[in-house]
Protein backbone atom coordinates (compact mmCIF):
# COMPACT_ATOMS: atom_id res chain seq x y z
CA UNK A 1 0.00 0.00 0.00
CA UNK A 2 2.79 2.41 0.90
CA UNK A 3 4.21 1.97 -2.58
CA UNK A 4 0.83 2.76 -4.15
CA UNK A 5 0.39 5.84 -1.95
CA UNK A 6 3.85 7.04 -2.98
CA UNK A 7 2.94 6.49 -6.63
CA UNK A 8 -0.31 8.45 -6.19
CA UNK A 9 1.62 11.15 -4.32
CA UNK A 10 4.04 11.47 -7.24
CA UNK A 11 1.19 11.52 -9.78
CA UNK A 12 -0.69 14.28 -7.92
CA UNK A 13 2.49 16.30 -7.48
CA UNK A 14 3.37 15.97 -11.18
CA UNK A 15 -0.15 16.92 -12.28
CA UNK A 16 -0.01 19.95 -9.99
CA UNK A 17 3.30 21.11 -11.46
CA UNK A 18 2.06 20.50 -15.01
CA UNK A 19 -1.35 22.15 -14.55
CA UNK A 20 0.23 25.24 -12.98
CA UNK A 21 2.92 25.26 -15.71
CA UNK A 22 5.62 25.49 -13.03
CA UNK A 23 7.68 23.15 -15.19
CA UNK A 24 8.38 26.16 -17.43
CA UNK A 25 11.61 27.86 -16.27
CA UNK A 26 10.48 31.08 -18.00
CA UNK A 27 7.40 31.25 -15.75
CA UNK A 28 9.44 30.73 -12.59
CA UNK A 29 12.05 33.32 -13.63
CA UNK A 30 9.33 35.85 -14.43
CA UNK A 31 7.92 35.34 -10.93
CA UNK A 32 11.35 36.15 -9.48
CA UNK A 33 11.68 39.20 -11.76
CA UNK A 34 9.78 41.91 -9.90
CA UNK A 35 11.41 44.62 -11.97
CA UNK A 36 10.47 42.98 -15.29
CA UNK A 37 7.28 41.37 -16.61
CA UNK A 38 6.27 40.05 -13.22
CA UNK A 39 4.19 36.86 -13.33
CA UNK A 40 2.66 36.25 -9.87
CA UNK A 41 1.51 32.68 -10.73
CA UNK A 42 4.10 30.93 -8.53
CA UNK A 43 2.84 32.81 -5.50
CA UNK A 44 -0.63 31.32 -6.02
CA UNK A 45 0.82 27.85 -6.56
CA UNK A 46 2.57 28.02 -3.19
CA UNK A 47 -0.44 29.73 -1.65
CA UNK A 48 -2.81 27.04 -2.96
CA UNK A 49 -0.52 24.27 -1.70
CA UNK A 50 -0.09 25.84 1.74
CA UNK A 51 -3.85 26.48 1.99
CA UNK A 52 -4.18 22.68 1.84
CA UNK A 53 -1.16 21.64 3.94
CA UNK A 54 -1.66 24.14 6.77
CA UNK A 55 -5.04 22.83 8.01
CA UNK A 56 -4.37 19.29 6.70
CA UNK A 57 -1.04 18.84 8.50
CA UNK A 58 -2.54 20.30 11.67
CA UNK A 59 -5.22 17.60 11.69
CA UNK A 60 -2.86 14.79 10.62
CA UNK A 61 -0.17 15.61 13.18
CA UNK A 62 -2.74 15.52 15.99
CA UNK A 63 -2.85 11.75 15.42
CA UNK A 64 -0.17 9.64 17.13
CA UNK A 65 1.07 8.05 13.89
CA UNK A 66 0.20 7.86 10.16
CA UNK A 67 -2.14 5.20 8.78
CA UNK A 68 0.49 2.89 7.25
CA UNK A 69 3.54 3.55 9.42
CA UNK A 70 4.36 3.42 13.12
CA UNK A 71 5.67 7.00 13.21
CA UNK A 72 5.94 10.28 11.31
CA UNK A 73 9.33 10.77 9.63
CA UNK A 74 9.87 14.42 10.45
CA UNK A 75 13.18 16.32 10.43
CA UNK A 76 15.14 15.83 13.68
CA UNK A 77 16.68 19.27 13.60
CA UNK A 78 14.94 22.47 14.52
CA UNK A 79 18.17 24.48 14.46
CA UNK A 80 18.33 27.67 12.42
CA UNK A 81 22.04 27.60 11.70
CA UNK A 82 24.67 28.44 9.10
CA UNK A 83 24.06 25.22 7.17
CA UNK A 84 20.34 25.94 6.81
CA UNK A 85 20.75 29.53 5.70
CA UNK A 86 23.87 28.90 3.59
CA UNK A 87 22.25 25.91 1.91
CA UNK A 88 19.04 27.82 1.22
CA UNK A 89 21.11 30.68 -0.26
CA UNK A 90 23.05 28.31 -2.56
CA UNK A 91 19.77 26.73 -3.63
CA UNK A 92 18.21 30.13 -4.26
CA UNK A 93 21.18 31.11 -6.43
CA UNK A 94 20.96 27.97 -8.58
CA UNK A 95 17.15 28.23 -8.77
CA UNK A 96 17.38 31.82 -10.02
CA UNK A 97 20.04 31.06 -12.63
CA UNK A 98 18.11 28.24 -14.35
CA UNK A 99 14.51 28.77 -13.21
CA UNK A 100 14.32 25.17 -12.04
CA UNK A 101 13.96 23.70 -8.57
CA UNK A 102 14.05 19.94 -7.90
CA UNK A 103 10.32 19.13 -8.47
CA UNK A 104 9.89 20.78 -11.87
CA UNK A 105 13.35 19.59 -12.94
CA UNK A 106 12.58 15.92 -12.22
CA UNK A 107 9.05 16.19 -13.69
CA UNK A 108 10.64 17.94 -16.68
CA UNK A 109 12.56 14.75 -17.50
CA UNK A 110 9.27 13.73 -19.14
CA UNK A 111 9.95 16.27 -21.88
CA UNK A 112 13.26 14.53 -22.75
CA UNK A 113 14.82 18.00 -22.96
CA UNK A 114 18.61 17.55 -22.94
CA UNK A 115 19.26 20.71 -20.91
CA UNK A 116 16.85 19.56 -18.19
CA UNK A 117 18.35 16.06 -18.14
CA UNK A 118 21.81 17.64 -17.67
CA UNK A 119 20.45 19.86 -14.87
CA UNK A 120 19.04 16.84 -13.01
CA UNK A 121 22.28 14.84 -13.35
CA UNK A 122 24.30 17.83 -12.05
CA UNK A 123 21.78 18.29 -9.23
CA UNK A 124 22.15 14.66 -8.13
CA UNK A 125 25.95 15.01 -8.32
CA UNK A 126 25.85 18.12 -6.12
CA UNK A 127 23.48 16.45 -3.66
CA UNK A 128 25.62 13.32 -3.31
CA UNK A 129 28.85 15.35 -3.09
CA UNK A 130 27.42 17.42 -0.22
CA UNK A 131 26.21 14.20 1.47
CA UNK A 132 29.77 12.81 1.29
CA UNK A 133 31.27 16.04 2.65
CA UNK A 134 28.79 15.99 5.55
CA UNK A 135 29.46 12.30 6.29
CA UNK A 136 33.21 12.98 6.34
CA UNK A 137 32.99 16.00 8.62
CA UNK A 138 30.65 14.11 10.99
CA UNK A 139 33.09 11.16 11.26
Amino acid at each position, binding site marked *: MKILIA*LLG*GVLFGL*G*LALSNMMDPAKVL*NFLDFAGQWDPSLMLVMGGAIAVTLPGFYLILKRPYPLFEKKFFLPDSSAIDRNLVGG*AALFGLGWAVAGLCPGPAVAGLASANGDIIAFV*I*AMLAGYRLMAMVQARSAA
Partner: protein
Amino acid sequence: MYTATQFTPWSALGGGMLIGLSALIMLGFNGRIAGISGIVGNLPTSRGSELAWRLSFTVGLIASAFAFLQLAPAEALTIHVEVGLPTMIVAGFLVGLGTKLGSGCTSGHGVCGIGRVSPRSMTATLTFMLVAIATVFIIRHVLGVEL
Protein backbone atom coordinates in the same frame (compact mmCIF):
# COMPACT_ATOMS: atom_id res chain seq x y z
CA MET B 1 14.41 38.87 -25.04
CA TYR B 2 13.27 36.71 -22.20
CA THR B 3 10.14 34.69 -22.81
CA ALA B 4 7.01 36.53 -21.68
CA THR B 5 4.48 34.54 -19.67
CA GLN B 6 0.88 35.22 -18.68
CA PHE B 7 -0.43 35.39 -15.13
CA THR B 8 -2.57 32.24 -14.82
CA PRO B 9 -4.29 32.48 -11.43
CA TRP B 10 -6.76 29.59 -11.68
CA SER B 11 -4.41 26.92 -13.01
CA ALA B 12 -1.83 28.14 -10.48
CA LEU B 13 -4.24 27.77 -7.56
CA GLY B 14 -5.56 24.43 -8.82
CA GLY B 15 -2.07 23.07 -9.45
CA GLY B 16 -0.93 24.28 -6.04
CA MET B 17 -3.84 22.51 -4.35
CA LEU B 18 -2.96 19.25 -6.13
CA ILE B 19 0.60 19.62 -4.80
CA GLY B 20 -0.81 20.24 -1.32
CA LEU B 21 -3.02 17.14 -1.66
CA SER B 22 0.04 15.10 -2.60
CA ALA B 23 1.80 16.35 0.55
CA LEU B 24 -1.27 15.44 2.64
CA ILE B 25 -1.50 11.84 1.53
CA MET B 26 2.27 11.33 1.84
CA LEU B 27 2.20 12.54 5.46
CA GLY B 28 -1.19 11.10 6.47
CA PHE B 29 -0.66 7.60 5.06
CA ASN B 30 3.12 7.12 4.91
CA GLY B 31 4.32 9.66 7.47
CA ARG B 32 6.66 11.19 4.89
CA ILE B 33 7.42 14.78 3.94
CA ALA B 34 6.89 15.30 0.18
CA GLY B 35 10.19 17.07 -0.34
CA ILE B 36 11.47 16.38 -3.82
CA SER B 37 15.15 17.14 -3.24
CA GLY B 38 15.29 14.55 -0.44
CA ILE B 39 13.11 11.94 -2.15
CA VAL B 40 15.11 12.05 -5.38
CA GLY B 41 18.51 12.97 -3.92
CA ASN B 42 18.50 9.90 -1.67
CA LEU B 43 17.36 7.55 -4.45
CA PRO B 44 20.87 6.47 -5.48
CA THR B 45 21.85 5.31 -1.97
CA SER B 46 18.53 3.81 -0.78
CA ARG B 47 17.82 0.08 -0.55
CA GLY B 48 14.79 -2.10 0.08
CA SER B 49 11.52 -0.44 1.07
CA GLU B 50 13.19 3.00 1.24
CA LEU B 51 14.21 2.64 -2.40
CA ALA B 52 10.77 1.29 -3.36
CA TRP B 53 8.66 4.23 -2.16
CA ARG B 54 11.14 6.86 -3.38
CA LEU B 55 11.28 5.23 -6.81
CA SER B 56 7.50 4.87 -6.89
CA PHE B 57 6.97 8.57 -6.11
CA THR B 58 9.56 9.61 -8.72
CA VAL B 59 8.02 7.38 -11.40
CA GLY B 60 4.58 8.85 -10.63
CA LEU B 61 5.96 12.39 -10.84
CA ILE B 62 7.58 11.86 -14.24
CA ALA B 63 4.77 9.68 -15.66
CA SER B 64 2.02 12.18 -14.82
CA ALA B 65 4.03 15.04 -16.33
CA PHE B 66 4.58 12.87 -19.42
CA ALA B 67 0.86 12.10 -19.69
CA PHE B 68 0.01 15.79 -19.32
CA LEU B 69 2.51 16.72 -22.05
CA GLN B 70 0.96 14.13 -24.38
CA LEU B 71 -2.72 14.81 -23.69
CA ALA B 72 -3.07 18.49 -22.86
CA PRO B 73 -3.10 21.20 -25.55
CA ALA B 74 0.44 22.33 -26.36
CA GLU B 75 -0.09 25.83 -24.97
CA ALA B 76 -1.14 24.46 -21.55
CA LEU B 77 2.36 23.28 -20.67
CA THR B 78 5.26 25.11 -22.25
CA ILE B 79 8.92 24.59 -21.41
CA HIS B 80 11.29 27.43 -22.23
CA VAL B 81 14.85 26.82 -21.07
CA GLU B 82 16.30 30.32 -20.75
CA VAL B 83 20.02 29.57 -20.33
CA GLY B 84 22.65 27.48 -22.15
CA LEU B 85 23.78 23.96 -21.30
CA PRO B 86 26.92 24.87 -19.26
CA THR B 87 24.88 27.31 -17.16
CA MET B 88 22.18 24.68 -16.61
CA ILE B 89 24.83 22.25 -15.33
CA VAL B 90 26.30 24.83 -12.92
CA ALA B 91 22.80 25.77 -11.70
CA GLY B 92 21.81 22.13 -11.20
CA PHE B 93 25.00 21.50 -9.23
CA LEU B 94 24.29 24.52 -6.99
CA VAL B 95 20.71 23.34 -6.42
CA GLY B 96 21.99 19.89 -5.43
CA LEU B 97 24.64 21.25 -3.03
CA GLY B 98 22.25 23.80 -1.53
CA THR B 99 19.25 21.53 -1.03
CA LYS B 100 21.37 18.91 0.75
CA LEU B 101 23.17 21.47 2.94
CA GLY B 102 19.94 23.35 3.68
CA SER B 103 17.84 20.16 4.09
CA GLY B 104 15.15 21.02 1.55
CA CYS B 105 13.76 22.95 -1.37
CA THR B 106 10.54 24.65 -2.48
CA SER B 107 8.48 21.56 -1.66
CA GLY B 108 10.08 20.29 1.57
CA HIS B 109 10.60 23.69 3.18
CA GLY B 110 8.15 25.84 1.20
CA VAL B 111 5.01 23.69 0.96
CA CYS B 112 5.47 21.10 3.75
CA GLY B 113 7.61 23.04 6.26
CA ILE B 114 5.39 26.11 6.19
CA GLY B 115 2.41 23.74 6.43
CA ARG B 116 3.90 22.43 9.70
CA VAL B 117 4.55 26.04 10.82
CA SER B 118 8.26 25.19 11.23
CA PRO B 119 10.37 28.29 11.98
CA ARG B 120 13.33 26.49 10.40
CA SER B 121 11.48 26.00 7.10
CA MET B 122 10.09 29.54 7.12
CA THR B 123 13.65 30.85 7.53
CA ALA B 124 14.88 28.64 4.69
CA THR B 125 12.00 29.67 2.39
CA LEU B 126 12.51 33.36 3.08
CA THR B 127 16.26 32.95 2.44
CA PHE B 128 16.01 31.15 -0.90
CA MET B 129 13.21 33.46 -2.10
CA LEU B 130 15.17 36.62 -1.29
CA VAL B 131 18.42 35.26 -2.75
CA ALA B 132 16.62 34.12 -5.91
CA ILE B 133 14.84 37.47 -6.38
CA ALA B 134 18.11 39.36 -5.83
CA THR B 135 19.95 37.05 -8.24
CA VAL B 136 17.41 37.54 -11.04
CA PHE B 137 17.48 41.29 -10.45
CA ILE B 138 21.28 41.36 -10.74
CA ILE B 139 21.37 39.10 -13.82
CA ARG B 140 18.60 40.89 -15.73
CA HIS B 141 18.74 44.50 -14.56
CA VAL B 142 22.23 45.17 -13.18
CA LEU B 143 24.37 43.05 -15.49
CA GLY B 144 21.72 43.27 -18.23
CA VAL B 145 22.33 39.72 -19.45
CA GLU B 146 20.20 39.07 -22.56
CA LEU B 147 19.10 35.78 -24.05
